[in-house]
Each structure stands twice: as structure tokens, then as C-alpha cells.
């Protein structure tokens, strides 16, 4: 059963939720759209919000995170877990592409050894999705298994129907949030379907991913193709750090006189030192790192989890300083005859 909420009532609704959760909503401090703690009254983001620069993964796999603290006394070392963060988060306005990315990340952090830091944050969080009305030029979610209004990976999904939102209840957690909201009318539901179709049709960027796993496998050793593809890449970390499905991290200690904290922080396979060992670096050449990124997302991850680790959010295309475009690269991966070099 669908509910509805008028746009004028959003502030009230967020305040109500704010009693139980730490509400995060889009903000534009210093011109950078990001999920930040909601200030308690301003909902003008509904007018300008498209998507954040920093993806929601930052709330679950933060750029820098304490793992544990260590200290020393006369009997030796002691290890303490970091102060517990019992806070429940509510992410308001997460887009379907980013929500799907969270589901893709879950596969890694639940697999084999469970990652306690990420999973605890995920358990304590609620995702309130906001369907897109105005996809960007760089968006290509419809080619990556989702859509601008897909509600599969959120707890509730808000679809824009003019003065109000249709509220789709997806999970039990979501149903808890929508208690007290009015029921949607048949007319509302028709408007919502129209809104979904309009948003879907606005996506202009398309990518055909059929057979990409095999094409990449066969082209893996094509140094000429990868060198050409990597020529203008400058090996910064933007496409990976700001990708909602990338998760590589580094582990470092910070200490003074033997006491301190072990942190984990964002890292990127694009950095030259990422794979450096004392005697050799298997990816010292740029084209190998570019190849790793493309293959990991479009070949290796699907081999392990049956899903391409890309949701078409378009951040990498928009934010890349040299406009290196993953959709152009995927389209240009050659189809090789099996057996031929």
C-alpha cells in the first residue's frame, strides 16, 4: 500500500524522524553537494538536489575510520575497541543508483569474513530513497540494472508527483517510518507512474554491457588497447574514491610514543604505490592500473558476485579532470576471435 506526503510537510516529517535517528540530508556547503546532518529546518534542497559529490558509502565506509585503540602499561599492550557509535542514521534523499551501490558493497563486506564496522553501520541505518526527476547528462543507470526510480534497495522510496511525493513502502523498517502518513489515491499512483516514465526517458546515455565479461577476459593482455585507453588518465583517485561501489582501503597506525589508534582510510587501485612490494610493483605502469579498475568492476566482480560493480551514477565521468569516460572505454573493448592474440 502506498502513502503520500506533501512537499510542504517534509520538514515536519524529517523532524519527527529526527527524534529517533540522526537525519542526513543533501546540503551544499562550499558548493559541494553532500549528505550532511540536517540542520532541522531547511528543505530547499528539494529544489536544487540532483546527486551528491561524495557518495553515501562515506557514511558506512568513512574516508577515515577508527578500528581500535592501543595503549601500553607496565604489563604490556592493551587494545580497546573505538567508542561505540550507537547512533542510527537516516539517509534522506539517496538515489536509486547509490542505493543499488550499497547493496553491491554489502556483498563484499558480508562475504567470507564479516566486516564488523561496515555491517554495524548498515544495520543501524535507514535509507529513504528519492526518485530522480531530472537525471544528469552523465547518468546511465538504466543500462546498469536499475532506473531513476527503482525502489529495490531502499527502505522507502519517494516518487515526485508535483506538490507531493508518493511514498512506496519497501521494507518493514520503512513501514515503521511511514506510520501516520496519508494513503495515496489512485490518481497519485497514476501520477507516480508518469513521473517514473518521464525520468526513465530522460536518460540519454546508454551502455551495452552484453558480453563485456568475455571481451575483457580476451583483451586482458592487449597492451596496445590498454595503453591507448590509459593515455590521458592522470592516475589521481577521483573515479575510485568517489565511486559508490569502490571499497579499497588502507590500514595505518597513528601513534605517539607507542600509544595510539589504528585507522582504515580510503585507498585507490589507481595510485602507483597501491601494489608496491619491496622488490617489485606489478602495476607500476599506468595502463595496468587503468586495466585493473575497468576489469575489476566489469569482469572480476561479476565473476565473484554475478553483478557488475557499477550503477551508472556518472560521478566518474563528471568529476574526472580529463573527462575519461568509462562508457566510451567499455564500448571500445575489442571483440577478439577466441584463440587469436
Amino acid at each position, binding site marked *: 500500500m502506498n502513502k503520500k506526503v506533501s512537499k510542504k510537510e517534509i520538514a515536519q516529517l524529517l523532524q519527527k524522524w529526527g527524534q529517533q535517528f540522526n537525519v542526513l540530508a543533501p546540503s551544499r556547503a562550499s558548493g559541494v553537494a553532500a549528505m550532511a546532518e540536517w540542520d532541522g529546518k531547511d528543505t530547499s534542497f528539494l529544489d536544487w538536489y540532483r546527486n551528491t559529490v561524495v557518495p553515501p558509502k562515506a557514511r558506512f565506509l568513512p574516508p577515515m575510520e577508527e*578500528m*581500535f585503540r*592501543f595503549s*601500553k602499561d607496565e604489563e*604490556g*599492550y592493551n*587494545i580497546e*575497541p573505538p567508542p561505540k557509535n550507537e547512533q542510527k542514521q537516516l539517509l534522506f534523499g539517496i538515489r536509486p543508483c547509490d542505493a543499488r551501490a550499497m547493496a553491491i558493497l554489502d556483498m*563484499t*563486506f558480508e*562475504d*567470507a*569474513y*564479516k*566486516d*564488523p*564496522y561496515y555491517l554495524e553501520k548498515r544495520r543501524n541505518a535507514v535509507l529513504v530513497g528519492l526518485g530522480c526527476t531530472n537525471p544528469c547528462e552523465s547518468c546511465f543507470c538504466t543500462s546498469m540494472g536499475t532506473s531513476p526510480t527503482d525502489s529495490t534497495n531502499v527502505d522507502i522510496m519517494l516518487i515526485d508527483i508535483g506538490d507531493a511525493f508518493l511514498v512506496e513502502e519497501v521494507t518493514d523498517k520503512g513501514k515503521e517510518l511511514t506510520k501516520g502518513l496519508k494513503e495515496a489515491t489512485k490518481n497519485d499512483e497514476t501520477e507516480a507512474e508518469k513521473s517514473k516514465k518521464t525520468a526513465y526517458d530522460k536518460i540519454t546515455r546508454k551502455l551495452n554491457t552484453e558480453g563485456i565479461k568475455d571481451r575483457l*577476459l580476451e583483451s*586482458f*593482455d592487449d597492451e596496445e588497447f590498454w595503453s591507448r585507453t590509459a593515455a590521458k588518465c592522470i592516475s589521481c583517485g577521483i573515479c575510485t574514491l568517489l565511486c559508490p561501489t569502490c*571499497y*579499497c*582501503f*588502507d*590500514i*595505518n*597506525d597513528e*601513534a605517539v610514543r*607507542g*600509544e*595510539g589508534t*589504528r585507522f*582504515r582510510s580510503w*585507498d585507490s*587501485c589507481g595510485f602507483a604505490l*597501491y*601494489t*608496491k*612490494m*619491496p*622488490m*617489485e610493483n*606489478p*602495476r607500476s605502469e599506468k595502463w*595496468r592500473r587503468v586495466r*585493473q579498475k575497468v*576489469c*575489476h568492476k566489469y*569482469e*572480476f566482480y561479476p*565473476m*565473484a558476485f554475478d553483478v557488475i560493480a557499477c550503477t551508472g551514477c556518472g560521478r566518474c565521468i563528471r568529476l574526472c579532470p580529463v573527462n575519461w569516460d568509462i562508457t566510451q572505454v567499455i564500448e571500445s573493448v575489442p571483440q577478439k576471435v577466441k584463440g587469436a592474440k
Partner: protein
Amino acid sequence: MTISDIEKRPQFFAQDNVYTPHIAVIEKIIEETPGVRTFHFNFKDKKLAKEFRFESGQFGQYSVFGLGEATFCISSSPTRPDHLEFAVQRVGRVTNALHRLGVGAEIGFRGPYGNSFPLDDLKGKNLVFVGGGIGLAPLRSLIWNVVDNRDTYNKVVIVYGARTPADLCFRYDLEAWDKDKTINMVTTIDREAEGWTGKVGMVPNVLGEVAPSAKDAVAIVCGPPIMIRFTFPVLEKLGFRPAQMLTTLEKRMKCGIGKCGRCNIGDVYVCRDGPVFSYEQIKNFASSEY
């Protein structure tokens, strides 16, 4: 296809968290070569020290608190569990710090991680161990495991070499294996050296001279990547099929559990699905970067 069966591996989490190390105390330090030291250690928690189990080939993440972690295989054998051992070559920040530690110092240990040598596949086989430099460390865990269960395995040949006599590691092991009549121990150094009366030649070449038979045999190769790359063709010439060649791959590692992404080769994480792989598996990786 990932190759792990994590559930079957022994797991010992500190504070219920796979990332938290156990505290361990260094009990003995052996200077193998000017750059390599072996550390004997035991867990501070006596209960854990008694219960801890691992298998040959697995590794641990060792912490110097304040400086970070480094990856080393467990070089002692599971058949001799009174203490644990690992060998460290001095190359960077953490390894230099480890070398500055003395007996009684405390380190962190996370593990055991990774897969292990497939002992079931080695039963009754002729074993050919090929090692170079500090690469003997993971091998010695398996070799002592084999020696302590000698009747389970057939012939044993060990070809081990280093650049110079001073670079030979685990000399006390080499002497013991040399004395063992059931083992053919061949030690070599790369070039002639004063006072050296043993074999001279690079390990792959000496292996070719020793020419062990490939029939019912399994070769286990550990050493610098370049030595491994030259050893595989020698083994192939002797008739070993890729499935008969095992090795341990070395990659930069941080988490040790297949999450941070560093050791990713194709669809495999060396820390979780390895480090022990057969050459046949390696050839089938989606990536040729090993």
C-alpha cells in the same frame, strides 16, 4: 570462481573482530642472515596459545603497534605447536622496526589467514621442494610437517639456494635435512664463493641437473618471483603438469581477508583464496598479473 572454503579454516578472532590483533610476546630471535631474522613467539593469552591451530602455508598479519602491520607466513610447523615462528627480511618501515625488537617485546598477530598446502593431495607422493632465499620460510613449515609424518609421504627432494653462503637462511634446518637419510638435500649458491664446497648454480639450473622424476610427484616452489618464473619451465621439461606444481604467491597485503582489494588478481584475492596455488590455477586466473 573464488577458491575459498573459509568455514573449514580455524578462526581465532580477538574481541570478536577479525581486524583486532592478539597480543604476542617474542621469545627468541635468530639472526639468519644480516637482513633476515626469525622470531619465535607465543600468545600472551595462555588459553589461546594452547588452542591455536593453523596449517602449513597459512600466514599472519603481524603488528608493530604504532607503525603498522606486515604479512609473513607462519614458518613453524603445526606438528610442533609449542611456539610459533615467522621470518622477516628488513626492507621497510615495519620490517626495520621488527628487527629493532628484542626478546620479551610485544607484537600483534592476526590470523591464521589464507589457504594451506593441500596435504591430502600430497599423501603418498614424491615431493620436490624448490626454494630460494627467504622463500624457504613457508616451505619449511611444510617440510617439517612432512618429516614429522614421514611415512605418509614418499621420496623427498629439496633444492634450495641463495645468492651467497651468507644469504642462506635456516642453516640449522639445512643441516638437519642433510643428515636425514630419507631426504635428498641439495643446497646451492649462485656463484663460486671462497670456502664453499657445495653445488654452484642458480636454483632452476640446479633443479634441472638434479632432474627429479615427475611420476607421482608434486613440486612445491617458493622464492623470489623471478626464480619461480624460471623454475616452472624447468619442471615442465621434466614432465610435471601444471597441476603438479604448487607455489605461494606474494602480494602487498593489508587486511588479509579479501576486503581491502590490494592483493586482487582477476577474480581471486591472494590473501583469501591463496597464497597457495597450483600453476594450473594460476594459468586460469582472469588476470595474467602474478
